[in-house]
């Protein structure tokens, strides 16, 4: 089945409720439906077609259409299709049916849309108002076009966020917003009994910087790659890549093949450095500083290499719409090879030492279990999903840049614990080194930037995804006037992965919480680049005492 057939199926099934549908490229399906049928269509896609939920976006189109545009994005990985389901909501009654009851993964983004655009998801199981800072005024929706991007409401006193109460007998251990192993502010309320976690509650948005608003109101097309890159300081290049690809698709710009290869090489270099970095941090979390020091020592030449290729150690600034800014000079091909080969050799040795290191294994094996079902239900992405046995990888499923010409292996482990996530990343690093070699060997000559002759037309849209070190990065752009997008929607992988944290934590020892959170390689800045707030994904399983004991076969106190 291709996108065309899927669109036809939807029209056949829902008939008059489908207002319009069209296919862009081979793999992008855009469906516009009536608000009434939204839940059914979502259920059809999610249940019957086996689609994966990606994210939801709200756009203020009151000027153009006197309506709010609500879009749910799905992905059908087996058929390599991305699906956007549009619904228009009347401007004077901004309400839409919530699909969270049928698609649990929509939980966060529906709340986000409510808070940012002001479209209420009716029937949402956890409709608490939790977007933005605690003292942000009630009726101010930053993503609406009539709200200035630099509005600064005065601080309010005595506003307390709604918090989930701990279960009876448990106490709260606050982890964050400032916590030594969370490099970023994030706030987990972990409910513990003794050292045993019985539940968790997450509150984010400390890193919310309003990037989407800036992108849609003050920045221009070619400024956005730089802000997109700063969504994440570790793997920012995926965001600028994904953004540029999206705009290029929307505008129909073909970028030169060499630019595609350069993007691929930088992406893979970034993956290698990110995984090295992650292993070090993960080891640091469990107190194994030697691994931190050694992996970062291995990583450092790579950073120098990146500086040489791109002019900066990270936040490379390589991408513009239409191609890349700098060429990789052929004379440094060999330097790249020698650096990655050295890393590869040492990494291989390290990987060989890991399984035998029983103290290390004691900490990662069997802890932080994320079952395949939970991972699928809550839309986990990247190594987190692959560590739970879900074989999804955008590089293979929805190839971009030069990946369709390269050999990419999906590294999947199904033991679902922290160890699986370690091993996935360890293997992926070695795989990335292989890909790099292949790309360097195959790289064609030619220009690195496409010629762009005219301004981008307004009202076009496109979706694009990139496999970041942490999982799938998804961007959607609706082009606008004034040389900037009308709407730019981003979903970072941690956004999806974080929803899986509370169910994973329950039942672990508190000592395992940091490493379990760390095993997701969470990047809160990515997640919160927009307006994400979550107090509780609604999926928190607060175990009752009986359940808890039954599950862990722990004797009672008496």
């Amino acid at each position, binding site marked *: 089945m291709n996108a065309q057939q899927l669109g036809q199926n939807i029209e056949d099934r829902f008939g008059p409720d489908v207002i319009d549908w069209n296919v862009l490229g081979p793999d992008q399906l855009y469906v516009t439906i009536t608000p009434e049928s939204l839940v059914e269509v979502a259920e059809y896609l999610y249940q019957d077609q086996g689609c994966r939920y990606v994210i939801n976006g709200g756009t203020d189109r009151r000027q153009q259409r006197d309506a709010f545009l609500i879009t749910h994005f799905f992905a059908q990985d087996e058929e390599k299709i991305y699906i956007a389901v549009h619904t228009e909501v009347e401007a004077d009654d901004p309400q839409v049916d919530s699909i969270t009851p049928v698609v649990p993964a929509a939980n966060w983004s529906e709340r986000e849309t409510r808070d940012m655009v002001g479209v209420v998801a009716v029937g949402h199981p956890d409709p608490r108002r939790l977007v933005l800072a605690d003292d942000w005024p009630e009726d101010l929706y930053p993503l609406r076009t009539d709200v200035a991007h630099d509005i600064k409401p005065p601080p309010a006193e005595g506003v307390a966020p709604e918090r989930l109460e701990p279960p009876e007998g448990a106490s709260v251990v606050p982890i964050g917003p400032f916590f030594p192993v969370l490099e970023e502010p994030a706030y987990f309320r972990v409910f513990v009994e003794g050292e045993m976690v019985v539940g968790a509650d997450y509150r984010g948005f400390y890193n*919310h*910087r309003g990037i989407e608003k800036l992108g849609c109101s003050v920045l221009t097309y070619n400024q956005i790659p730089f802000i997109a890159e700063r969504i994440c300081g570790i793997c920012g290049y995926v965001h600028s890549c994904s953004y540029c690809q999206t705009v290029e698709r929307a505008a129909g710009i073909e970028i030169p093949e060499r630019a595609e290869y350069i993007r691929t090489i930088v992406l893979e270099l970034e993956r290698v450095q990110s995984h090295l970095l992650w292993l070090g941090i993960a080891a640091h979390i469990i107190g194994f500083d030697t691994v931190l020091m050694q992996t970062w020592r291995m990583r450092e030449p790579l950073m120098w290499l990146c500086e040489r290729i791109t002019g900066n150690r990270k936040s490379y600034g390589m991408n513009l719409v239409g191609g890349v800014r700098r060429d990789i000079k052929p004379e440094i091909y060999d330097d790249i090879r020698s650096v990655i080969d050295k890393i590869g050799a040492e990494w291989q040795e390290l990987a060989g030492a890991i399984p035998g290191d029983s103290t290390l294994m004691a900490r990662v094996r069997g802890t932080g279990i994320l079952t395949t079902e939970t991972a699928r239900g809550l839309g986990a992405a990247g190594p987190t999903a692959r560590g739970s046995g879900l074989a999804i990888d955008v590089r293979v499923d929805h190839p971009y840049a030069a990946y369709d010409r390269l050999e990419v292996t999906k590294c999947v482990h199904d033991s679902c614990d922290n160890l699986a996530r370690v091993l996935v990343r360890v293997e992926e690093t070695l795989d990335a080194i292989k890909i790099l070699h292949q790309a360097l060997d195959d790289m064609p000559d030619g220009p690195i930037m496409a010629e762009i002759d005219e301004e981008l037309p307004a009202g076009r849209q496109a979706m694009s995804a990139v496999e970041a070190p942490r999982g799938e990065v998804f961007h959607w752009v609706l082009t606008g006037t004034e040389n900037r997008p009308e709407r730019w929607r981003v979903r970072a992988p941690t956004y999806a992965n974080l929803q899986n944290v509370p169910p994973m934590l329950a039942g672990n020892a508190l000592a395992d919480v940091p490493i379990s959170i760390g095993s997701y390689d969470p990047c809160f800045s990515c997640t919160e680049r927009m307006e994400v707030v979550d107090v509780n994904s609604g999926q928190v399983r607060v175990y009752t005492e009986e359940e808890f004991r039954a599950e862990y076969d722990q004797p009672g106190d008496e």
Partner: protein
Amino acid sequence: MFKELCQKSFPKSLWVYHCNVGACNGCDIEVIDVLTPYYDAERFGIKLVGSPRHADVLLVCGPVTRQVVPALKRLYDAVPAPKLVIAIGSCAVGGGIWFDSYNVVGGADTILPVDYYIPGCPPRPEAILHGVAVALGLAEKEIESVHLKQLPDRPESVPVEVESS
């Protein structure tokens, strides 16, 4: 005498509490990088600590977001004097690329009294080390404000004296 000894020990043993107040992670990672073998800030007695009570230096990365302000103030209060605040990265120095966003309050010095600034996006580990060296008095700062003026009658520009405001 002992008191003096204690005061003299302060710059030789800077325990750092690193806080991200809304950064993209780039600076945070470079901060950790400074502790790793190639740069080894522990040479100067610098180490990361887990509790602000133990800290001497507050490393602030990122633009101060609205949500983090109260927590940041509490954090500053939780550090015992004498303390230094170092703003790392362009965001913490001047608010960065999102200086005017609705949810960003500005650079770290909007909220805290900042002692040293280390611009860069992200700053190289060497730049951070240099900042530390400046703070320790091991190096001089190497930048100052630039005021240039093209004169109509002379081809080259000259620096102009500007009263610092």
